[in-house]
């Protein structure tokens, strides 16, 4: 009796993000419509309060510095694009470029390593599959701060400090366990008949991978990539400790706007908006995959 086992009903809106099942709540007879309306209004109010800091950040990014730090806060102001213009003409580009390189390269590397590994832990499983899975996920629970010092020392000795390659390697190691778990949960959904048919046809492993498996789990690969992108793009601790002038990423740029020549709140807000935008957009588009990725495939 596994009381807490997750339910086996397939999620109703699986594979179709944004499509919601409109079944709930119709079962209980004619509920008064006004209470439902009140609840809806309440939900909206709560959501807007929760979202307000984001709105404030975006508003501030369109202010002049004087209006940004005014007391009382200025709600009505003449919007300006100055802050964004400043960022584009300032030295921000290398930071963002580094973020793009570290995120993109590590995500590609993760997928190259994780897809075969997940295959070997699901479709043609190695003997000690559970042990391997356990090992991968246990590394995720290792506090990063416990290994930063040796990494710093080693990177210093092999002259890899302030090098974007170091970040790429570390972000790959950071995301690989999650990616393997996620990809495995997608491979497990491939029906066995498909693979049997392929092996009867005498297709080689590489062929089966390329022609049959990869196309079938393509949505899974996209979801896995999304999660890797989010974590790599937002990463701060490694970037702070292992980079300086050459390899610093967008989070470091955000921090530098605060500490260099005093505080430029409006410009910081504009930089925050720009730095957050890629992940926010990706997360909005792939809400369903987000749940699966964050739970490492345990929740669909």
């Amino acid at each position, binding site marked *: 009796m596994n009381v*807490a*086992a*997750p*339910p086996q009903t397939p999620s*109703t809106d699986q594979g179709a993000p944004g499509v*919601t099942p*409109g079944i709930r709540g119709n*079962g*209980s007879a004619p509920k008064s419509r006004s209470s*439902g309306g009140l609840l809806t209004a309440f939900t*909206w109010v709560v*959501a807007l309060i*929760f*979202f307000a*800091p984001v709105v*404030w950040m975006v508003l501030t990014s369109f202010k002049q510095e004087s209006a940004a*730090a005014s*007391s009382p*806060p200025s709600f009505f102001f003449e919007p300006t694009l100055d802050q964004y213009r400043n960022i584009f003409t300032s030295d921000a580009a290398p930071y963002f470029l580094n973020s793009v390189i570290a995120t993109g390269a590590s995500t590609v590397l993760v997928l190259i390593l*994780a897809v*075969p590994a997940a*295959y070997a*832990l699901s479709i043609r*499983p*190695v*003997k000690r599959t559970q042990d391997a899975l356990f090992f*991968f996920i246990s590394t995720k*629970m290792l*506090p*990063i*701060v*416990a290994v*930063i*010092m*040796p*990494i*710093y020392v080693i990177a210093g000795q092999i002259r890899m400090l302030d090098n974007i390659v170091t970040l790429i*390697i*570390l972000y790959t*190691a950071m995301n*690989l366990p999650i990616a393997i778990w996620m990809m495995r949960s997608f491979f*497990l959904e491939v029906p066995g008949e498909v693979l049997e048919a392929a092996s009867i046809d005498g297709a080689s492993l590489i062929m089966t991978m390329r022609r049959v498996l990869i196309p079938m789990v393509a949505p899974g690969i996209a979801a896995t990539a999304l999660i890797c992108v989010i974590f790599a793009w937002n990463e*701060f*601790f490694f970037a702070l400790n292992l980079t300086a002038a050459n390899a610093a990423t967008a989070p470091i740029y955000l*921090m530098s706007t*605060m500490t260099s020549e005093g*505080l430029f*709140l409006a410009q910081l807000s504009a930089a925050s908006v720009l*730095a*957050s935008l890629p*992940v926010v957009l*990706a*997360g*909005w588009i792939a*809400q369903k995959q987000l*749940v699966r990725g*964050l739970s490492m495939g*345990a*929740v*669909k």
Partner: protein
Amino acid sequence: MTTTATPLTDTRSAEAIRAQKAAERAEGWRRRAPLLPALIFVIVCTQIPFLLTIWYSLRSRNLLRPEGEQFVGLGNFADIFLDSTFRAAALNSVIITLGCVVVALLLGLGLALLLDRPFAGRGVVRTLLITPFLIMPVAGAMLWSISMFNPSYGLVNWLIGLVGISPVDWTSQYPVFSIVVALVWQWTPFMMLLLLAGLQSQQHDVLEAAAMDGASKWETFRYITLPHLRFYIELAVLLGVIYVVNTFDHIYLMTAGGPGTASANLPFYIYQRAFLGFDIGQSAAMGVVTVLATIIISLLALRLIFRSLNAKEQS
């Protein structure tokens, strides 16, 4: 005849067994081959540094002192347990982690329940609610410490000023509280997403049957929904703890562990000792202690994740 026949079959079968074993081994390696690159990569990147951390933790080494390093056994561990700042940081870790996870879980449950019914604009509301989780944590931390909590022009002081409360210097007077607020804001969507997935995986016929049998909304929630959610709540709490216990960004940017060391948690204090104090031995010892503590939590988490995994594979 028979005398020669027996050893012949013996050798033949022995050969057959050997061949079979070789084939099995070859098959084993064929299966292992796709796994090895990832496995080796992760071992090299995580286990070697961790072994080095253990090595460092047994030695006295301070980059600022030239007398060099020496083996001190468990001396570093004794030192850090006598270090009251370390104990305070450990306590802060617990307060910040539990405070954030519990409050975010309750808010997330409330929001998930609100979203678990059809209404106009549900998709938009969900999208708005998950946004704080997607904002870059560095941006989120600075948004709270400056735009929200600044004593002179922060939005929070303006709001409480409307009801006549005098301004508060949040990050100096209530540093831990300020950090927890910013963290709760970031992690509530995470909790909400997991719990909403749990709510939506409920079987509709069970809920309908309960309603038909005259169960009130509260009874349905208490005796059907909540037990069903148990797995999701456990998963959300444990994953939440694993992520939040490592919080560094918010503390570094909002309070820098201050005032003094009032709001430093373990990751931040270890960072301070390593990169500002250059005390490699002690910071490594603290790292080892943190890992041991995390392993205890992790084992619980892993058991849970494996339980769900096995339950799924049986189906």
